[in-house]
Each structure stands twice: as C-alpha cells, then as structure tokens.
C-alpha cells in the first residue's frame, strides 16, 4: 500500500455519524449527501476540502448509527484517510469495508494542527509530521483489514469471489 500524504482538517471528540451525514439526507444520492458532510460543526469543510486531504479527529470518531454513508461521503469528498485518537467500531469497520484508510493513534489529535501535512504509512501504522519530524505509532490494523483495504473494499472482494459466477 502506498504512503498517504495530505493536508489536515481537524475535528474534536465524539463526532457522530448524524453530524457526518445527517439523517435528513440519508435517502439522497451520495453525491448530494457529500455537500452536507459535517456542516453542523464546520460549514466550510464540504466546500473547501480537496482531494487527498486527511481528516484528523479526537476520541470516539464516528460514534452513533451504522450508516455507511458516513465513510462513503468522506471518501466521495476526496478524503484519503481518517486518523483519530480513537474510533467507534462500526465506523471503523465500515471505512475499511469501503476502502477508506483509517488509523487509531492515542493523542494524535494533539500532535497536528489544522492545515499541516501528515504522512501516513498504514501497513506500519506510522505517521509523521514533516514540519517538526515528530513520528507517532498508531494501533496496527489486523491483516484481515489490510487485505480488504488493499483490494479497495468489499465490493472488489465480492467481484473476485462471485464476478465470474453465472
């Protein structure tokens, strides 16, 4: 898997899936939902986020509902990775399942500021702030998760298993 390098958007603790993709847009196509991502906490985010950016958050990111629109909409906005002090488990699994890189690293939110660059090696669970050369080690992903991520998500995995079945 390639090294991920991107500009940081920073969010706080307990960012829940209702805030990431509000319930009122749930039945809308993802291309519409993405324009409302995180609008209640940072209305600029969905408008100004660029392809290849990294989302950084505090504790318990993605708590709440099992809606897969949350990681989907972040991916649709061009976010390459979500890094947080800790994650709610369903969001974490859903991100892996759709091929969005995620890494938990305790207190990472204190080591970077918004707009700074983060370098991320997912396989080694290592991340670096090139500005001050501070390196941190996150919680390594299980090989099962890395396998799904390296294929690009579960849809690709299903294609491999069932794509030629008629």
């Amino acid at each position: 898997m390639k090294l991920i390098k991107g500009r940081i958007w920073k969010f706080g603790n307990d960012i829940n899936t209702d805030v990431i993709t509000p319930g009122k847009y749930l039945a809308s196509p993802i291309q519409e939902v993405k324009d409302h991502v995180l609008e209640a906490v940072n209305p600029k985010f969905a408008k100004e986020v660029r392809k290849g950016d990294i989302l950084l958050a505090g504790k318990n990111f993605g708590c709440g509902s099992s809606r897969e629109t949350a990681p989907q909409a972040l991916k649709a906005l061009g976010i390459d990775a979500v890094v947080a002090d800790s994650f709610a488990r369903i969001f974490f699994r859903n991100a892996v399942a759709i091929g969005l890189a995620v890494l938990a690293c305790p207190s990472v939110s204190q080591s970077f500021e918004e707009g700074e660059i983060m370098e991320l090696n997912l396989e080694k669970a290592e991340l670096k702030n090139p500005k001050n050369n501070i390196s941190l080690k996150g919680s390594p992903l299980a090989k099962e998760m890395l396998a799904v991520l390296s294929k690009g998500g579960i849809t690709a995995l299903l294609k491999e298993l069932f794509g030629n079945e008629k």
Partner: protein
Amino acid sequence: MGMTLAQKILARASKRQMAEAGEYLVADVDLAMTHEGLWGVYPILKEGGVTRLWNLERIVNLLDHWVPAPTVQAAETHKIVRQAVKEFGIRYSYRENAGICHQVIPEKGHVVPGDLIVGTDSHTTTYGAFGAAATGIGFSEMAYVLATGKLWFRVPETIRFEMEGDLSPGVMSKDLLLHLAMKYTAEVAQYRSIEFAGSAAKGMTLSSRMTMSNMAVELGAKFGFFEPDEKVEKFLEGRAKKTFQMVKPDPDAPYEQILRVDVWKIEPQIALPSNVDNVKSISQLGEIIVDQAFIGSCTNGRIEDLRIAADILRGRKVSNNLRLIVIPASWEVYREALKTGILEILIDSGAIICNPTCGPCFGGGMGLLAPGERCIASINRNFQGRMGSSDAEVYLGSPATVAASAIEGRIADPRKYLSRRMA
C-alpha cells in the same frame, strides 16, 4: 480458563474450542437482519456479481425507518428494497405493517440465545437481551454476509456491570443506562462486549433489559448481553423459529473490568444535548422548557413504556405549550395498547398516536424540530441535528419522565405523579 458470553458464541460460530479476546476470527453468522438498509446493500451485491444469497432461512428484512414513506426519496428507497426482496427471494420480509426491527425480529421468533446476529442498524445490540451476540454492521459488510454467511470479528474484551438492588419506583432501566453513561462515559465499552448482571438484571423485565442492550452501543459496545433465563424461554414459547440452547458465561470467565453499581440510589436521569453521556440527575437539572415530548423508538416504545406513560397521564392533560407524540414500537405492541385501553388514556390526555415506525428518533419524520426547539424523548441519541434542525435540542429520558414532562411543558420528575397514585 473459562469464557465470557462473547467468547463462547464467537468460538462456537467459528468452530473453535476457544476464542481469546483480541484475536480475529471468521465466524458463521446465524441471522442477518436488514431494514431499509437493504437499499444500500443491493447495489453492492449486484456490482459484486452475487446472484444467490447464502441461506434464505437466516435472512430477515422489513421496512421501519420511513413508514409510510414521507418523501419521494423514501418511497424510492422502499421500491428498491421490494425489488431486492423479490429478486433474491427473501422469505422473511415483514414490510410496513410490522414495526421497528429490534422489536419485531424478537417478536417473530428470529432471535434465540447463543446466536450470532448482524444487522444493518447500530441498535442490533438489542438482541443481547435474549443472550444473542448481536451487533450492527454497514452495507458492504452486510453484502458480504448475505453472499457468504460469514464475517470476520475481533473477539472483544468484556466489561461486566454488576447491578445490585432494585430501581426505585418511577425509575426505569433507561435511567440506569444513562447513569452508566454518565459515570463511565460513552466510550467505556469501545470495541468491547458488555454483560449486564447482578440482582437488578435478574429482576428486570425482558423489555427493560432490551432498553439497556439497545443502548449498549451508546457506551461503545459491540455486544450488550444479559444472561438468558426463564423470562427469555417464556417469551420464546410458541415464537422461536428454531431450537436453541441456553448459554451462560463461565464462572471463571476473564473480565477486563467488573463494575459494581448500586441501583437503588439512582434517580431519574436526563441526557442533555448533544452527547448520550452528558447526563444529570433530574434534581440537578433546573428548569428546561420543552416544545415536544416523544415516547417511542426501539429503545422505549414497548408496552411497559406506554403503560407507565398512561399511568402518569390518566385523567391529566398534555400541556398546551407542547405536543406529545407516541409511537408504539411494533404492531404487536400497538394492538396490546389498543386492547388494554392504554391508547385511549393517551389520546384522552391529548397525545398524538402514530403508526409503528422509527419516525422522529433519527429525523425521519412524524415530528421533526424547528430551529430553537427542544424535545424530551425516550429515544437513544441526542446528537446535534438528530431530530430535524441542527439548531434544535434533544434531551433523553425514560418514558415516565417524558410523560411527566408532557403534563408540565418542561422536563419533570415522574415520581410525584406515580407516588400519589401508590399512596
């Protein structure tokens, strides 16, 4: 070394002798539940080239989030779900006149002790009240389960809450759960399994247990177990779709933490906006005027919830300054509330009764909030924007607290209404 309920069920489901906390394993799923989420699963199945589902006896679908469809988009979602049900021949499809999944799936006998269950809904943990290892997953993972019957799991560590004593009158299992959130935070059980135990757990009704297992996910948990007992067996008589064996944790099971809670001390609890663990006891709250009161949802829309609300509202009127919305969790609950006269008491008090559905709980409809409005609700989440406007506020309480608040137009202690009757 013995095993916790999570370890036992995951070991059995992956055909192993032992499952150690922290290890990853691939397990055979016993039941897969989808609601409108099937709309999101279907295109993944199609794109993945899946033409047959793994086992039609083990797949259940219904419609509960937008019932009946309040918008054209919701109607389109339902249309896709119906198409998927037809195309794949999904046998157990309960459609619009059943109710909320977490009430209906147990009522229809699909949930039995010891099963491993996944659902496209975070509150799938509800089935832990029956001794099932049940958890929420997303669309992609559900597509994988529907195609293969398998999914990988991390074997979770377990936290055991030893809840001792009796809840005081007017205090419900919802208050106890909110108290745990306040005391131990919404992250206490992140990636972990919970076993709710102790004399309070044993003494609780199955409905009250379901409320706590339901909200186990609000403590971060993957599973939220009660040890199944004769109450579960009795409920399943004539309902269970399959035979089952009772399952219990080993006496020497390894717990990450055992937390003891004295239940009798707890008074009604309120979660303030916008996190479930932002909790205060009602006596510490001060005056909070509310515009809407809502009793319903998979958390607290069962018959005992409607009954305590009716006990409080009997012969009284809902304040002119708010609207009270009551939504029974299922058609079985709805019918029982009708037969026992509970609905009439609620209607006489001025409540609006809607058909079983998730409704305003997640912002789907039937009572959304305008900017600046406040709602006291018996639901599971008070997140910003959860019930309509991002500038509205949701407070969480028990159905008894919601009923008392509906009378006063502000968040109110239900005990004064109940104690008078008991005296």
